């Protein structure tokens, strides 16, 4: 356990050191999105003010997902593909699977920080147009917990399967589509007229994150049932952690 704690301490030390950069990276995009779609356009009469209610849960989910994925996938990809920095931690007296677990914990932590950062920003900017009623704090915390882990598990899977030279491509082909096709900027039920897409995107863990937050923050908006949301997130965590762990072990040994 001492070793696990030391690994975690190393990552937290580095995170705190890079905190300003981390905050800008995590918060800039959601800030701009909320500012334009939740403040500027509604005030300009281009977007209905009630759009803010749709946007808040979606932005929360998207930011958490991005933070968790970026926080794990990019360093891992670089570590295994090029700089080999992780070698020293792989040689630490601990099982390799525990090194993976530490990475998931760290990604989850970053995802939570992102959530904790973006939520108040979005709230403040859009407060005049929001009608948020937290239905159940317990459910909210369960969802925050699960979304954080799901994002880190997604990151581990991507990070161990993508070479560092393909990171820009990963953004273009996986992360951006995940966000845009993740029911962040529209509720999943609104896709009823594009039924095939509505079904296809159910493989995207983002959908469950966004719909889950909708169910607890803005329950008036039609959303996927909480039970299915939680099952979806649990399935994503199980499958992606499994693939990620296998990928990690495969990269760690030769």
């Amino acid at each position: 356990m001492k070793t696990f704690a030391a690994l975690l301490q190393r990552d937290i030390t580095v995170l705190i050191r890079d905190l300003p950069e981390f905050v800008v990276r995590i918060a800039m995009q959601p800030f701009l999105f909320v500012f334009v779609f939740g403040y500027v356009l509604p005030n300009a009469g281009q977007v209905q003010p009630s759009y803010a209610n749709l946007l808040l849960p979606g932005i929360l989910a998207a930011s958490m997902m991005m933070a968790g994925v970026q926080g794990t996938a990019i360093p891992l990809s670089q570590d295994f593909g090029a700089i080999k920095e992780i070698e020293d931690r792989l040689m630490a007296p601990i099982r390799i699977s525990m090194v993976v677990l530490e990475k998931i914990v760290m990604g989850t932590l970053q995802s939570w920080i992102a959530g904790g950062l973006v939520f108040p920003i979005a709230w403040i900017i859009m407060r005049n147009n929001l009608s948020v009623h937290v239905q159940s704090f317990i459910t909210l915390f369960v969802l925050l917990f699960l979304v954080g882990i799901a994002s880190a598990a997604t990151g581990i899977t991507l990070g161990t399967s993508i070479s560092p030279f393909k990171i820009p491509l990963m953004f273009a082909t996986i992360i951006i589509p995940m966000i845009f096709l993740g029911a962040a900027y529209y509720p999943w039920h609104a896709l009823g007229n594009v039924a095939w897409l509505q079904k296809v995107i159910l493989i995207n863990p983002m959908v469950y994150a966004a719909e889950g937050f909708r169910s607890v923050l803005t329950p008036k908006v039609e959303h996927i049932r909480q039970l299915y949301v939680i099952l979806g997130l649990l399935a994503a965590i199980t499958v992606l952690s499994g693939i990620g762990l296998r990928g990690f072990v495969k990269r760690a040994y030769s």
Partner: protein
Amino acid sequence: MEKPVIQIESLTKVYSLDSHRRVDAVKGISFSVKQGEIFGLLGPNGAGKTTTIGMLTTRVRVTSGDGFIAGISIRDEVAVKRLIAVVPQQNNLDRSLTVRENLIFHAKYFGVPKQEREQKADELLEMMGLKQRQDDYVRAFSGGMAQRLMIARSLMHEPKILFLDEATTGLDPQSRRLLWDKVNELNAGGQTIFLTTHYMDEADELCHCIAIMDHGKILAMDTPGNLKKMVPGGNRIELELKDVSDALIDGLQKLDRAGEVNRRDEPDKVVLSIHGDQTMMAGIMRVAQQAQADVLGVKLHQVTLEDLFIHLTGRRLRD
């Protein structure tokens, strides 16, 4: 007889590239390394050295056979990792941390208590000549400094065995020499060191025992001195002359211990090659004087591990 600290028994590694092709990287090797020894695995690139060290350090999965580090099977990864340290060829320092933090965090991973790790870090930074740089980030480090820091890092948890995997490859001669000094210094303090190299001079200079490896097999293993004795002919002296008389050849052949005298004609000189070492120099010069030979030069050719490798494989080490 000291108890071996590394014991390898029929260790084998097969890589499956796909369902049809496989590479036998290490083919059932067995040997042991004594406590306090500098042991070298010498061979060309692709001989299987790094795969062997990879298996001993738990990072390459063993196909068959077994290895024991201080009596513990290398399949018991966590227990083995506690006993060893590895300095790789490639810089794998933590670029997000300072020089000192690289050492401190490494020690933390191994559960070294605070006071001990701070003291150890001071000692090692001093020893490796990095004290002045301790608060710098390692991003801008040169190859030699990085290598020294990696050695310092590896010693933070006082490993029973230090593995150096081609640790001097790519270093300038000065940094290499400095690293050799450090290796000797550590060994003088009782540190067992297992290294791989494809530099025969490095193996010759540093190692107490050398295993010569090629195509996944150990071809020979002994002290550098004994290994060189395996080369037929051994050391020889080459006498370069303007011309050669029968009297000279007769005289040389009669010299103690001298075997056959070989003659090689070159455009502007004749070279006579006589088996023997520096102790025969005086006798040879005396014979040459008596025969009134016009000596252009004398060269002593000492057998190198390279000669042994050529003798064993018919190839040069660095083909």
